[in-house]
């Protein structure tokens, strides 16, 4: 057998698996999305139908809030951990990164333990103010869950980016008379921009498309993945759920592709 045909042979199984179980189903999904009573206009329903549009806006706002807060939290903690050496640092890093392997369902349960009916926060607020604070089963619980999910990932990216920063630039800025805030604002943060874009995009796309956490917390939280799920399983509305999930897929793919072209590194969602 020639080398050329051997290389083709190596590629064949992947081509078959991908075509049969990814490309063909995705094509079917796109066709089904246009197969409803409205035809191709079904794809516009996500924007024209008030209920779907409200859910879309809700989801985007939630994802944006998750991204911004995660970036702020992770930058403060990541910069601190990378710039200082102190006893217990390794343990602290381990504590901040061990939830990396938790699937969304488990993250949901963690939030229930914090803010659910038997949760820690409710317990404290009950003792302090005589009122039980329970918000795990609302969009605030979901927000907390996505923070829990995203912080470890983003911290790792920020720490790696801070490590690569050239300390000399900061020293130069200081020696030219820049104050600590000016150094952060004009030297450090701009240099970290690619890391912010890459990790922020992952946090955003995950918060848009993740399903496990929302599913664990409550089935009536108004976000896009839950809407798709209920349309498909409860209402058996195949064409609308297909159209909505194609729309959701295009949004998350687009965000990640945009981030990748900007930051130049591989970017993937998870969860």
């Amino acid at each position, binding site marked *: 057998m*020639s*080398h050329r045909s*051997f*290389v*083709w*042979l*190596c*590629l064949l199984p*992947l*081509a078959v*698996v*991908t075509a049969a*179980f*990814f490309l*063909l*189903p*995705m094509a*079917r*999904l796109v066709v089904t999305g246009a197969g409803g009573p409205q035809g191709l206009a079904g794809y516009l329903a996500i924007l024209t139908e008030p209920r779907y549009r409200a859910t879309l806006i809700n989801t985007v706002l939630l994802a944006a809030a998750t991204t911004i807060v995660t970036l702020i*939290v992770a930058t*403060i903690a990541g910069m*601190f951990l990378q710039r200082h050496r*102190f006893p217990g640092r390794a343990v602290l890093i381990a*504590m*901040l990164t*061990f939830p990396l*392997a938790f*699937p969304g*369902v*488990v993250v949901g*349960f963690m*939030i*229930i*333990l914090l803010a659910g009916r*038997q949760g*820690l926060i409710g317990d404290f607020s009950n003792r302090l103010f005589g009122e039980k604070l329970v918000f795990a089963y609302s969009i605030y619980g979901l927000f907390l869950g996505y*923070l*829990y999910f995203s912080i470890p990932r983003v911290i790792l990216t920020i720490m790696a980016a801070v490590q690569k920063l050239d300390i000399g630039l900061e020293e130069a800025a200081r020696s030219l008379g820049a104050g*600590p805030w000016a150094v952060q604002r004009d030297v450090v943060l701009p240099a970290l921009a690619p890391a912010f874009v890459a990790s922020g995009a992952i946090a955003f796309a995950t918060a*848009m498309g*993740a*399903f*496990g956490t929302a*599913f*664990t917390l409550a089935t009536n939280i108004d976000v896009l*993945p839950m809407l798709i*799920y209920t349309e*498909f399983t409860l209402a058996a509305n195949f064409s609308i*759920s*297909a159209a909505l*999930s*194609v729309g*959701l*897929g295009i949004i*998350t793919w687009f965000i*990640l*592709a945009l981030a990748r072209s900007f930051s130049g590194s*591989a970017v*993937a*969602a998870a969860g």
Partner: protein
Amino acid sequence: MRDRLIFTSQLIFTLLVASFLVVPAILSISAGVTVNYFRGIQSGVTLQWVAQVWELYAGTILLSFVIAFATLALTLAVGVPAAYALHIRGGRMSRVVEEIITLPLAIPGLAIALALLLTYGDFGDFRRSWLFILVGHVIFTMPFMVRSVMAVFATIDIKTLDESAASLGASPWRRFRDVIVPNALPGILAGSLMVVTLSLGEFNLTWMLHTPLTKTLPIGLADSYASMRLEVASAYTLIFFVMIIPLLVAMQLFAEKEAKR
């Protein structure tokens, strides 16, 4: 003085973030071995909940391992040769193929699961078997294996190795087995750890693809969160931690070792 203040406030902030992540996990672990979580740890320590979980959900744990290792076998058999071919061929076509197989990372699992259901949902026997879940896991984890192996090929001069083995008269298959695979081993190991970890924890796809007879561990977890008492749900989560954390530690140790090389 000022530096001291900044250091301390940053430390306190970081500690707060760490406790946000760690405290619920500790709560979960302690609840899993507490007689009555509502009354607290004073009510006694017990393994009865763990035993109950095993009785109720042993099947899901077993199926998760079966699926994880079947996924690993398939991603190895399909992904490693493909990574080699994509690297050797290079060029535009390889980039397009890599782009396509990476798409499942950018598209929510829910959408992929719907697509699989709409396409193969009517093939009753296939739909009802665990192979249906396996297919989803293979599509979802394949890019991790392929890219992890390709990353190794990018750091060693695999073409020269391959050509020198060819000039000594080795057949393509022998070269693949005796030269390519041993050299790709670090990438294969890293990819394998990733694939098994992801498959064990996969929920988004699996929830849509499972049937009452093909429940995996994360499906069982969601089930117990919804319908079992907190102690049972916690004990189940505890079992999941025991399974997944060694894999995570191995993955990080491995990454550190690679970074040092």
